[in-house]
């Protein structure tokens, strides 16, 4: 009897990071970016998302359950590593380490972020431009947001790189190198979108 449960968990962990979580992060950043066009534009975009049918089911299936699995299993993976960048300061070894650091930052941030927005909404608060503007009015909160936007963008971008390796898409060193350039370009683009959006609430 084959018991390749670990193989299955790892593959699911890798897949969930891209679909739905990666896709969700991109949509989330795009909605946020509407704030650049002013509070009304943001409220319309956020309101559109809130009016989607079966919202709660979609939230659970596409966001909460995947993020809990990816986050908790990811923490288990992250703390299994014994980092050795001081001895082997190669680029990929640093990316390996940063992937774990950025993942831990992101999961801590997400816990706080969900508490501050989605759970407050469940308690009756209204999610709109003013809510975010109030949160980032505190410079510490703003700093936490900026750091976490960078961390989440990096984690997704570099995660796409390792997704391609894990599923056997990029096998040759050359394809892996090109994937590094593409995913790091994606990291910069995502960070720009995310940071410009959050600064629109200041």
């Amino acid at each position, binding site marked *: 009897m*084959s*018991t*390749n449960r*670990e*193989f*299955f968990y*790892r*593959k699911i962990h890798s897949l969930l990071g891209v679909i739905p979580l990666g896709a969700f992060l991109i949509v989330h950043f795009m909605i946020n970016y509407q704030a650049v066009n002013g509070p009304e534009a943001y409220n319309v975009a956020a309101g559109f998302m809130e009016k989607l049918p079966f919202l709660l089911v979609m939230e659970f299936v596409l966001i909460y359950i995947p993020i809990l699995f990816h986050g908790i299993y990811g923490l288990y*993976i992250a*703390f*299994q*590593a*014994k*980092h*050795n960048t001081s*001895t*082997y300061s*190669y680029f*990929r*070894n640093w*990316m*390996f*380490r940063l*992937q774990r650091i950025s993942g831990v930052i992101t999961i801590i941030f997400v816990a706080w972020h969900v508490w501050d927005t989605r759970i407050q909404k469940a308690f009756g608060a209204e999610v709109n431009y003013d809510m975010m503007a109030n949160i980032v009015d505190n410079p510490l909160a703003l700093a936490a947001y900026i750091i976490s936007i960078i961390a989440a963008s990096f984690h997704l971008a570099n995660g796409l*790189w*390792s997704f391609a*390796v*894990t*599923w*056997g*898409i*990029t*096998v*040759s*060193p050359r394809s*892996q190198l090109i994937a590094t350039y593409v995913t790091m370009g994606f990291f910069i683009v995502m960070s720009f979108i995310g940071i410009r959006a959050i600064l629109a609430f200041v």
Partner: protein
Amino acid sequence: MSEKTITLKIKRQKTHDSDPYFETFNIPYRENMNVISALMEIRRNPVNDKGEATTAVAWDSSCLEEVCGACSMVINGKPQQSCSALIDKLEQPIKLEPLNTFPVTRDLVVDRSRMFDSLKRVKAWIPIDGTYDLGPGPRMPEPKRQWAYELSKCMTCGVCLQACPNVNSKSEFIGPAALSQVRLFNAHPTGEMHKAERLETIMDGEGGLTNCGNSQNCVQACPKGIPLTTSIAALNRDTTLQSFKNFFGSDRI
């Protein structure tokens, strides 16, 4: 008499469970020495830098030409073979430590059994035994043989496991060496007959292929320049396809 000396700082350990300590030795310089010949010099006259008589440093070696992998140790922070580590090319004091990802037996001697167990686990050979003469196997195209030869250079030295951040006491990861051997034996025309079985082995249980975190230290550290990360990525593709075959249903072999 030459006044030049070589200073070696060696991490020592009396038994597998005793505490490690450093001991420094100064030995006379000779031309063209390697780390092994420096260790032989210490064995000839086991006196440390304080002038105290001590036990000779234990180390492992066999071929002395970088093909057996037995003399691997961490030299000035870098895991490598001590037979091909030339004294003239090393910064002094030369720091020697055991490959501590493995259980240390004594001083610089480590127990690499887990690597050999891994090779047995993945069937890193070509099974040809049967109840009758199977006759000659299919021939291998020459370009493929040349390509496979690069993978066959692995000497199970343990440097890749030492460099891997995911091979440690908290993880069961099999490590890059045995994985690359799966690719080698699956590429062989006769070995291919057990392809699915080998893939199942590295997909099965704990510490298999998916434990690789793509830090890619192994390929940088490998003294034989084996494309270990390419092997891992190629196996990722093979095991992905194998898992689809297993789940959705198809001929498994």
